[in-house]
């Protein structure tokens, strides 16, 4: 244990899970009923789309960009999922594939013209939102039954949301952190010049990462619409901020290709639970919004402790 304490990197990697566990412990003491299959399921099933959106954001952050459009994109996918997909599955899937292609094209455009990704994705957030409003001017639609059935699956022993999150974290970790292709993709965030000099195409890496972002964005939107059963053009706008916060909470950094898929998924779960805690506390309505901020701050204050030990070790 002293060994772990002495190693700041390990300590830092442990930070997200420790925060999550502490938060869970607090919730369980306040509301013991949460400590059950049903309780965990209720608290966490809406975390899954957030976790997916966070992973989507992570793909873009890994190549030193930021996607300000992911929330609007997830909303659009939810709208597609509640309108086109049930009526015409083939067309729906084609639309989703088209969206992913647009994402890849964005990556190419950003690389080719050397554009600030943040501006392009800011513009895209309006484009996606506009498309969603055109598709679904007023809330409605209904998700295909199979989709709802999938995301509301009752798995034995451990709730689906937890299983799926764990699987997501694991798969993305294996791909991005362990596979030989993932190394190149992350390297393009760490030192693009070096990767280019070693003979790799930066254009392809950027397109790949953006396409992945689109892919996970699609999964997030589908998962969301499966849970809510119907859509709304504004449904997930806040995912943009949540997903960025989740990546950072999970130990990622904005530049340098330093990301952690497992941390990011845990970050997304932590953000969701921080909201839950509030419902279990009794706080005057005036201060409820503030309490949300205070909870976040408390969860993050752990970092300060770690940094202190880190400085002492240095």
């Amino acid at each position, binding site marked *: 244990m002293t060994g772990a304490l002495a190693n700041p*990197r390990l300590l830092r990697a442990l930070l997200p899970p420790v925060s999550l566990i502490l938060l869970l412990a607090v919730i369980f003491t306040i509301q013991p009923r949460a400590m059950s299959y049903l309780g965990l399921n209720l608290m966490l099933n809406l975390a899954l789309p957030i976790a997916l959106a966070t992973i989507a954001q992570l793909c873009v952050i890994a190549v030193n960009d930021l996607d300000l459009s992911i929330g609007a994109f997830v909303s659009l996918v939810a709208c597609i999922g509640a309108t086109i997909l049930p009526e015409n599955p083939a067309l729906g899937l084609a639309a989703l594939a088209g969206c992913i292609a647009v994402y890849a094209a964005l990556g190419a455009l950003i690389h080719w013209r050397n554009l600030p990704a943040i501006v392009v994705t800011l513009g895209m957030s309006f484009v996606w939102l506009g498309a969603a409003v055109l598709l679904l001017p007023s809330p409605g639609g209904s998700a295909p039954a199979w989709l709802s059935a999938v995301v509301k699956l009752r798995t034995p022993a451990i709730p689906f949301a937890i299983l799926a999150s764990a699987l997501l974290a694991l798969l993305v970790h294996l791909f991005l952190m362990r596979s*030989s292709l993932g*190394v190149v993709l992350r390297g393009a965030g*760490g030192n693009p010049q*070096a990767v280019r000099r*070693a*003979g790799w195409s930066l254009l392809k890496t950027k397109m790949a990462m953006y396409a992945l972002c689109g892919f996970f964005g699609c999964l997030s939107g589908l998962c969301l619409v499966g849970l809510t059963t119907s859509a709304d053009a504004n449904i997930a706008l806040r995912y943009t901020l949540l997903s960025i916060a989740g990546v950072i909470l999970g130990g990622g950094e904005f530049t340098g290709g330093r990301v952690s898929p497992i941390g990011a998924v845990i970050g997304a779960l932590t953000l969701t639970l921080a909201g839950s805690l509030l419902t279990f506390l009794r706080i005057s309505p005036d201060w409820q919004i503030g309490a949300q901020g205070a909870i976040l701050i408390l969860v993050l204050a752990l970092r300060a402790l770690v940094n202190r030990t880190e400085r002492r070790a240095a």
Partner: protein
Amino acid sequence: MPHPTAAPPPGTPFVALAAVAKSFGAVRALRGVDLDVRSGECLGLAGHNGAGKSTLMQVLVGNVSPDEGRFTVQGEDVAGRLTVARARQAGIACVFQELSLCPNLSVLENARIRHASLKGFGWRGRAARLITRTLDEIFPGHGIAPQALVSDLPLGQRQMVEIASVFAQGDHEAPLRLVILDEPTSSLDNSVAAQLLAHVRRFVSAGGSVILISHILGEILSTCDRIAVMSDGRVVDLREAGAFTRASLVEAMGHVVSHEAGETLVSAEAGRRGAVVASATTPKGGSIRLEARRGEIVGLAGLAGHGQTSLLVLLHNAAQGRSRYAAVTGRVAFVAGDRQTDGVFPLWSIGGNVTVRSLSRLGRFGLVDPAREKRLAEEWRTRIKIRTPDMDDNILTLSGGNQQKALFARALGSDAEVILMDDPMRGVDIGTKQEVYALVRAEADKGRTFIWYTTEFDELKSCDHTYVFRSGRIVAELGRHELTEARVLQSSFEGEAA
């Protein structure tokens, strides 16, 4: 050991360049270079900062395509068509002057970036074995774990990793025929540099070719078979190494032959008398306390990455009143050696990079005066000979050595009384070095204090007092007259065997 297979008989040219030219806007970096590299030889490349050496190498590996000229690899014309991948196919690889590792990846993952063939099931194991094997071979006793994150490694070890990943010969890769080393030893200490040079000889004797760029003439003279001297974008001299002496080489580079560093620059005063302006202990403990007095040049020695830079940073923080271990009276300035991470502001002009440390002095009514700023920049451009058409150009248009000069100018041009130097001569050419040595001595005589970490023994000769570091501690303290290379080496390695 890389064994270049099917090596042609030694002596035939492997690559040949004729009248190669390249301009960057107004700067004519290459003005018609003729050069060939033969199989089985080590070709040395010397020349002042900004002579065009790095640019020429970028041409050779396909990163920069030349504006004019012919360029053949094994007789085949490749001018304008060479890409990085094709160059590697032809067996050409390069250790660049500015580090080309991804700091967010581990050592073995960086090897993967360099070697596209490392993929598929079990690639991590293969990559780790490959890089460890090569590191063991070139740098025995390197102590680098393949899982270590590159950003955690000190500069010297990063350089070792980069060199090893270039020399590594993957299983299904085209055999390595020509390795370009652009100032590979600038951040290595002497013993590690010697290991590298020995490996270069082995590689060459097995039939490979090496181009070695360095400002340390000793290593060029001892390692290379032929030496080309570049000046202002041309090759101005090319002879067998044996035909050069140190003096004639310096002369060919267009510098006045000067004396060995330090020897004639010894100040008249000896003994430690001035007031102590800086003192520090290493946070890791150790009984010897560093002390620097007014007007002194204090050297920090030892193997690279043994706590010298941390101590300098500590002293720097102490001047802002934030250290338990160190105390400094007066203002400090820092000359970075690791210029990418510690020194350069990449978006700014050369002038902006020089004046940043002095802005508060250049003010009028609380506003920075652009005219005075320009004057300061111009003054140092001439004093330290920064090669550029315009100080308003971006700093990154400068060659590596010239960027380093700008960082020197930043510190020397400031009002600092204590100047901390973190192995600042990396990549600076020999002529400039002599001038900087003289400048440092002159400033010290005027009362400035220098604390100077260096990996080159010769530079310690300029110092009044030397502290040797090992494992984050100061293990020896040597006065000017006690200083010998043997004693420094002995203190650096002492206890290593135990």
